[in-house]
């Protein structure tokens, strides 16, 4: 289980997973990192033996592995099993990485000496002028292949196509009998795409396309976006947060306390009803009080996060 105290506050219909075909948007600020929520879902999906595709735009695999270990999941094993896919969207996302390409992990590099001769050579799929996904050789009893890397492309559509291939691949590999496994696609985080120069409109379109794609595979989309008050004056940033909130079915907003920092309460977590949720209620897809809108407080501990009602911090009681 991820964080036990968070569980009761999440949508209960498919707990501990999210309802398939939905989109959870997590927003955070500089003062309160929303990353801890992503780790919760990664851990839950892997423990439930479902598929996770994690696109690390702001973090590297090592980070997630280490936190995962604290929460009791072994991401390396999960990768070998095929439950967990990591997509490196950090190292080569922009063309700034181009001069240093020789120092970065080469996806097309041949495997270490333990590979048998029967291993097929890597096949590079050249799609467009921009993105290339180099598929590392599928070897039998070797450590999991290095993560797929998203290469720079001036057009965001290429990024979408690359992700589309990865997801279709992940979903097809793990089709167990009549029921398809649930999939979760996690984007950490969207604001990086804005900062790298793609337009707000394109990033919102990417979110739309991914949401539709993931729904086809019985999946859920989770994104993280930065929503600081100070950045609200910047139109792209503001537009992205609002656009994502309009697209989302569930919204969780992580913010620092208005009164400042505290030792016992690291911030507040709000479960919010956006326009998408209202429509779900109108359609009868969610029961009346299934997911009430409320604000909770949280505290991050070494290998757990405590979530509690406002005013009920253990430091206070």
């Amino acid at each position, binding site marked *: 289980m991820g964080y036990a105290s968070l569980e009761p506050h999440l949508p209960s219909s498919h707990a501990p997973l999210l309802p398939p075909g939905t989109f959870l948007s997590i927003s955070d600020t500089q003062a309160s990192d929303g990353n801890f929520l992503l780790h919760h879902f990664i851990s839950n999906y892997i423990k439930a033996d479902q598929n996770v595709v994690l696109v690390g735009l702001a973090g590297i695999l090592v980070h997630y592995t280490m936190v995962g270990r604290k929460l009791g999941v072994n991401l390396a094993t999960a990768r070998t099993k095929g439950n967990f896919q990591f997509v490196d969207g950090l190292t080569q996302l922009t063309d700034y990485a181009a001069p240093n390409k020789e120092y970065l992990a080469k996806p097309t590099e041949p495997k270490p000496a333990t590979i048998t001769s029967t291993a097929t050579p890597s096949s590079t799929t050249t799609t467009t002028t921009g993105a290339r996904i180099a598929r590392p050789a599928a070897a039998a009893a070797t450590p999991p292949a290095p993560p797929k890397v998203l290469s720079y492309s001036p057009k965001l559509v290429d990024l979408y196509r690359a992700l589309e291939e990865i997801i279709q691949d992940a979903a097809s590999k793990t089709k167990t009998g009549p029921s398809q496994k649930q999939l979760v696609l996690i984007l950490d985080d969207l604001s990086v795409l804005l900062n790298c120069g793609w337009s707000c409109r394109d990033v919102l379109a990417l979110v739309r396309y991914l949401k539709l794609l993931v729904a086809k595979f019985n999946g859920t989309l989770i994104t993280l976006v930065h929503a600081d008050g100070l950045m609200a004056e910047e*139109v792209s940033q503001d537009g992205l947060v609002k656009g994502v909130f309009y697209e989302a079915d569930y919204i969780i907003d992580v*913010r620092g306390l208005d009164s400042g920092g505290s030792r016992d309460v690291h911030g507040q977590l709000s479960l919010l009803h956006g326009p998408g949720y209202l429509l779900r209620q*109108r359609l009868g897809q969610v029961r009346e009080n299934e997911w009430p809108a409320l604000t909770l407080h949280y505290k991050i501990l070494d290998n757990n996060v405590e979530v509690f009602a406002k005013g009920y911090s253990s430091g206070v009681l």
Partner: protein
Amino acid sequence: MAPILEKIMAGKEASPFILVKDTLEQSGQVLGLELLSNSPSNHAIILVCAETAPDRLLPLVKGNHKKAIVDCYSNPLGWVKDTTSTITSNRDAASENTTITISLTLRNIRKATKVITDLITTQRSNFTIYFDSLSQFLIASVPDTFNLLRSITALLTDTSRIIAIHHEDIPDADSFLSDSSSKPQASNSLAHIATTLITLKSSEALRQDQEDFKKGTVTAKEFAYLTVHGNAWDSAVCEIEHKRKSGKVAKETNAYHQGTPTGNLAVVNVWDVVGDMPDIDKMDLEESQTADPAANLSFNLNLTEEQRKAKNDTVLPYLKTQESTGAIYYEPDAADDFDDDDPDDDLTI
């Protein structure tokens, strides 16, 4: 006096272009769909879906209207090459209507305009076109969106109308430019061309304003894109500005209320939803109700039946002069020296 929102919903107040302005805090989609469902039964409904999947909107459009869907949702930027034809037909088992679905991208609003106006021209009249979000169009191009709306309004007749939802808080294409402050705000321009403007606010926001007003304070608000009070399913407040054909503008604040999340909408008085009417408005209401000035006097100003009859029967002496064409009508009385001759006769000029 029925709330004006109720009249608009029932179709008693004609309005060729209803614009529902909403924000993240209070979505106008539910109200918009209710307005759409109340379209006359002989209307064809054209659903332009840009923000919600068509299969999610369709179940919420009640009634047996013939429907056409313009799907701008599934492929907004044309990133997916659709191998199926762009126009598909589905037989709707319930109402025996064939629903056509047209797939459209929003890369080029002008092309989209052509598709939509063609669809309208074939329909010609008796239709309601519904935009579930103008924001997706405005983020592509503001002038092209306005041209789209103007092209549609040019094709409207007495039996057709537009209902559109507009998200006030989403920036439009112009906002991203550095000289955006010099351009007119799309929101304001839209309000000009709309004949009915409905602005949604959450009931809690109005309650908070009422509280502040009573206390004389302003509660400090933490920054948030959306609060926990947002999008309550049970009620919402609507500020309505309705321009009649005569030129008169009716401005009212109403509210709607639902018993269950999937239940019917009922238009109510805003104070039923928000709480007590503030004292200032109570005073205004008392003043506007015409009090009988003849009450509470120590003498009787009323007329008896006989007196009333006598009053109605009196002939007013100079009534004829009121009806005449302007000719001078002179009737001399006893003291006048009436002389028919022209007094200027003896002048020898």
